């Protein structure tokens, strides 16, 4: 008898949910299934998606990063301010990525060296970065640099008639690919899985637990900063007050994407699907017109609950399986 490996069950469930959401959308609304809507979907959820890839690593390692939304907003306003001051766009982006990575690494150090709970440290990060964003500039800054106005729109690919894949969507897909490679094809990625699954065993197996943990939070900071850059492409501005609660969307995407919230199990492409599910739900609600936007939150919350309970049931069955094996 071929049984499905239990670690694929949440992943498969995600795929089923994605197909179901997309299918019902296409059945209900004639224009829903067009390539153009799909491309828009990728474009609209690009910055959430990039940040969610970083969040996936943290959750895989058994932690949580609540600073994502603030980080995206902070890097956004930082870049806008630098561009306003006449800085080269690539230098500005480089600075943004460095700042994100370093903040992530600092949080990782606090978590590892002083054994502080991750949710608390990243909560402090959330506060700090949100406030620092306002220190840089209390109001939104529009970006009118020629790179944003003229170069970016050309960096797009026609994938189907009337469907242009914008650069933001490409960044999103690239992040997913890079994330997948990192997670599945490097020692670092495998160590993240091992630590998330059982930190004590990982230590006894001689894996570099501290280094990996700190690197994980640094990586999440880096991806959040990249998400901030993509957000400036998308919004053509930076705003310190924006993206409040983005961290919840990112976490929800990761969990709905089939990653175990306790760590150790999950796939980065699952996060892509999770982000798409969230985006599709929003699209359906927009297409419907009579349903209001708050339904998005309720549906996301319900999906989150379903996946958490599903994971709990699977892990419980796993424990019982191990007991029976004794």
């Amino acid at each position, binding site marked *: 008898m071929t049984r499905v*490996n*239990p*670690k694929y069950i949440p992943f498969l469930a995600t795929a089923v949910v994605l197909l179901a959401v997309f299918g019902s959308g296409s059945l209900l609304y004639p224009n829903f299934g067009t390539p153009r809507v799909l491309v828009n979907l990728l474009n609209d959820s690009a910055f959430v998606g990039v940040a969610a890839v970083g969040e996936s690593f943290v959750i895989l390692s058994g932690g949580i990063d609540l600073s994502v939304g603030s980080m995206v907003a902070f890097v956004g306003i930082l870049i806008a301010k630098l561009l306003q001051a006449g800085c080269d766009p690539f230098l500005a982006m480089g600075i943004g990525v460095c700042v994100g990575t370093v903040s992530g690494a600092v949080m990782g150090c606090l978590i590892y060296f002083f054994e502080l709970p991750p949710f608390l440290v990243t909560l402090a990060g959330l506060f700090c970065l949100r406030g620092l964003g306002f220190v840089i500039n209390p109001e939104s800054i529009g970006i009118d640099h020629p790179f944003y106005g003229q170069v970016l729109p050309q960096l797009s690919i026609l994938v189907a008639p009337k469907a242009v894949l914008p650069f933001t969507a490409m960044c999103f897909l690239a992040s997913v690919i890079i994330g997948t*490679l990192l997670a*599945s*094809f*490097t*020692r670092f990625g*495998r*160590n993240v*899985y*091992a630590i998330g*699954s*059982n930190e*004590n*065993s*990982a230590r*006894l*197996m*001689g*894996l570099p637990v501290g280094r990996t943990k700190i690197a994980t939070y640094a990586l999440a900071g880096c991806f959040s900063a990249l998400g901030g850059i993509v957000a400036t492409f998308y919004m053509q501005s930076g705003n310190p007050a924006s993206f409040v609660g983005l961290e919840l969307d990112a976490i929800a995407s990761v969990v709905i994407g089939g990653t175990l919230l306790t760590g*150790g*199990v999950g796939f980065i492409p699952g996060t892509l699907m999770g982000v798409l599910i969230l985006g599709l739900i929003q699209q359906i609600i927009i297409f419907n017109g009579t349903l209001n936007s708050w339904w998005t939150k309720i549906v996301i919350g319900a999906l989150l609950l379903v996946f958490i309970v599903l994971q709990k049931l699977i892990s419980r069955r*796993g424990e019982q*399986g*191990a*007991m029976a*094996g*004794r």
Partner: protein
Amino acid sequence: MATPLLEIIGLTKGFPGVKALDAVDFALQRGEIHALMGENGAGKSTLIKVLTGVFPRDAGDTRLEGHVIAPRSPREAESLGISTVYQEVNLIPHLSVAENICLGRQPTWFGVIRWGAIARRARAALARLDLSLDVSRQLSSYSIAIQQLVAIARALDISAKLLILDEPTSSLDRTEVEELFKKLRKLRDGGLGIIFITHFLDQVYEISDSITVLRNGCRVGCFATRDLPRINLVSHMIGKAVQQVEALGQKRASTASIRSDAPLLEARGLGRKGSLQPLDLDVRPGEVVGLAGLLGSGRTETARLLFGVDRPDQGTLRIGHQAVRFNSPRAAIRCGIALTPEDRKVAGIIPNLTVRENIVLALQASRGNWRRLPVAEQEKLTDRFIHALDIKTPNREQVIRNLSGGNQQKVLLARWLATKPRLFVLDEPTRGIDVGAKAEVEKLIQSLRQEGLGVLFISSELEEVVRQSQRVVVLRDRRKVDELTEGEISEEAIMHSIATHNLERPAA
């Protein structure tokens, strides 16, 4: 004799207040399986941890193939060729078998992991153990026995010279153990040195070439297995306890206090798969029943079943003629059972609460959330027990963490006495407490008996069991092997039961 593979000379390691290892010598030849034996606290695991660099040593030399080594981390020890497989399988259950074998040392190509090479290497490592598995499957989908073998394969994957197995068989069944031993013999014949730690006597005699016995951090001796009769091994491990325990008179407690023949507790065929073979057990009011056996023989498992911590999957339990099924300690407590657990720190004390709070806890729990014991009554109760049990504490509001082990134990006894139990299960009540406190605990047990309570007394110190009990149930390898009554109880008789009873198989 050629240079031994591993030689340890005068290894000493102290923790604050304890000398965990005191000038221990040890030698292991190539192609030898060497059993390391000893009761709890003998120093086995400290020896292993110092050897593998988890703890720093205080003094002594370690030589591997004649070269002095001093590993500072398990990783360094591994690179020297010393690999360890722990009792709990320390692998990553969610990852594949192949990955578990290669984790941390995956073959890469410019930083990119070569999954094909990993699978090949894992298959090769498993082939050394004559094992052929689907290495791409998740580790947790295999039985514990296979996981254990995977752990060994991982340990051997780096050119290991010395393999340390810390209680590898405690979760395996009979056939799985045979299978494991077959593989160990093959590895031994290939020239590997193996240190084997276990508490199963049968297994020691089945697999090991020589035995080193530790007791209280000292080496008792090193013996060739075939020259050491079981009874001697047991007595080496348990030792002659030379303690000035307050003389309770060599005249042992008599059965006079037993009030009736009707048992208070009556277990028939009570057992749980993987933890305890079905056993029969009676405790009568006014009787102390001793539960004797070596570490891991099923003593604590019995206590857990009786107290509803684990659920039995077979057999019946009657308390005062009424059939009961406990699904939680709460249910057991309601029937008048009390338990002081083996591990005081984990399951006994609430470390940051005061003596008073710790004492009233169980009584309050039986009264429920809302009917709170008035403070005045709590204080009266606490003072009474502090006085009656002579608990040495500056005052009743002292945080229990700051008390000595013996006084913590007395607080736990007080916690349960306050609930006025009918049956008291005492799991190692005298472990880790000083001689004076031990005597007091023993005296208390006798007075409980006189008051008509039933007591199930679990201890690894045979002398104590002999002195306290009117009946002794002997356990070995998680099954009841003997029951000694009044006239038959002696340390020698118990040791004989532990060492020689073989219900299923003749001695190896």
